[in-house]
């Protein structure tokens, strides 16, 4: 179904599960799965941040700089 998000199951050690369950008490997280999803997204995003910056071709970069100079954005 298009409106159903597909989920899968991963295993984590039971003591860790229990620690997380205790940790999320009284927070906005309604389940251990929600919390684990949140943390994994955060971790993956920070790893991706560290990956190499996008590089433009020299020719493309020079063309853009020319336009930026013409418009007064660059000296």
């Amino acid at each position, binding site marked *: 179904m*298009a*409106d159903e*998000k597909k989920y899968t199951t991963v295993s984590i050690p039971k003591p860790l599960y229990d620690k997380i369950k205790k940790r999320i008490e009284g927070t*906005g997280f309604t389940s251990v799965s929600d919390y684990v999803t*949140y*943390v994994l*997204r*955060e971790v*993956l*995003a920070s790893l*991706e*941040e560290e*990956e190499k*910056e*996008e590089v*433009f071709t020299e020719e*493309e*970069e020079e063309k*853009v*700089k020319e*336009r*930026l100079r013409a*418009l007064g*954005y*660059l000296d």
Partner: protein
Amino acid sequence: MVSKPHGGKLVRRLVAERTRERILSEQKEYPSVKIDHGRAIDLENIAHGVYSPLKGFLTSDDFQSVLNHMRLSDDTPWTIPIVIDIVEKTFDVGDAVLLYYEDIPIARMHVEEIYTYDKKEFAQKVFKTTDPNHPGVAKVYSLGKYLVGGEIELLNEVPNPFAKYTLRPVETRILFKERGWRTIVAFQTRNAPHVGHEYVQKAALTFVDGIFINPVLGKKKKGDYKDDVIIKAYETLFEHYYPKNAATLATVRYEMRYAGPREAIHHAIMRKNFGATHFIVGRDHAGVSDYYGPYEAWDMFENFPDLGITPMFIREAFYCRKCGGMVNAKICPHPKEFHVHISGTKLRKMIMAGEQPPEYMMRPEVYKVIRSFEKPFVE
């Protein structure tokens, strides 16, 4: 280092010149679809990477995922459905169609899917209301019966009276790099600046290398500042009150949805694609009337630890007679009777009446430039 594009790679959907010429010479062979100005500038934003990672209009999987989870089906944060509608099916899945704005063929679209949808569900989930008085909801209700999903390629730019002020993500990224900015805060606006805006911007700029003022140009409501007034007012403010190497001004064309918290995330994503690392989230950001709480947009950011741009929550500024300057509720200890809130509506009324606002509300140079326009407001 400037932000990585949303989804990892800056999308560019521009066809090579020879392909463009060939498509245009064969244009009568394609089914055609007429689109409005808002969809035409959505197309441009897709093609130039402002909406990265979108390569086209949403298919039903992505559409449903955005409605229900505020993410694309691959889990990338995405809160506003970018869709194109048709009233009846005049072409099939697998066709390539040409999208026309007025008489200009703007783009070729490869039709991946034609699907029906529930307008009330669309409205409720995106705008948190089904009230037709909400401008975003009214727009959804006016759409055709079907949505069409598929990738696009840009053939022609939409006519733009402010082309010289309109920078694309590839340009701002190179500009920020050339200026040596590693941290950039973006500010979204639809107004000529008053001193409250300046306070918020400078408070944010204190913590980063540069500020990117990015006014949204496009369809406006009666009584709003005209686009050229906003640009000139900011140019004047920059000239007199901003450090030359720490601020830049460029516009983006975009049709406001007024979806409050969801749209605040969308605005942040667009600025991430321009290369900004931080984004100022204002009071009642992208709201209209009283459909959303004044700081509801701030809470929304908690749902996106993987957004890839840092929100800066800066409280509304006001003038305090006791402090003798611009402050906010967090830093001012004085009671309300000392506070003067700067109302955009009140300022507009003063300007229309030819009455110069006090300097703690609007810089005299900004007032002067607004008054230099015979008709500074949309009629």
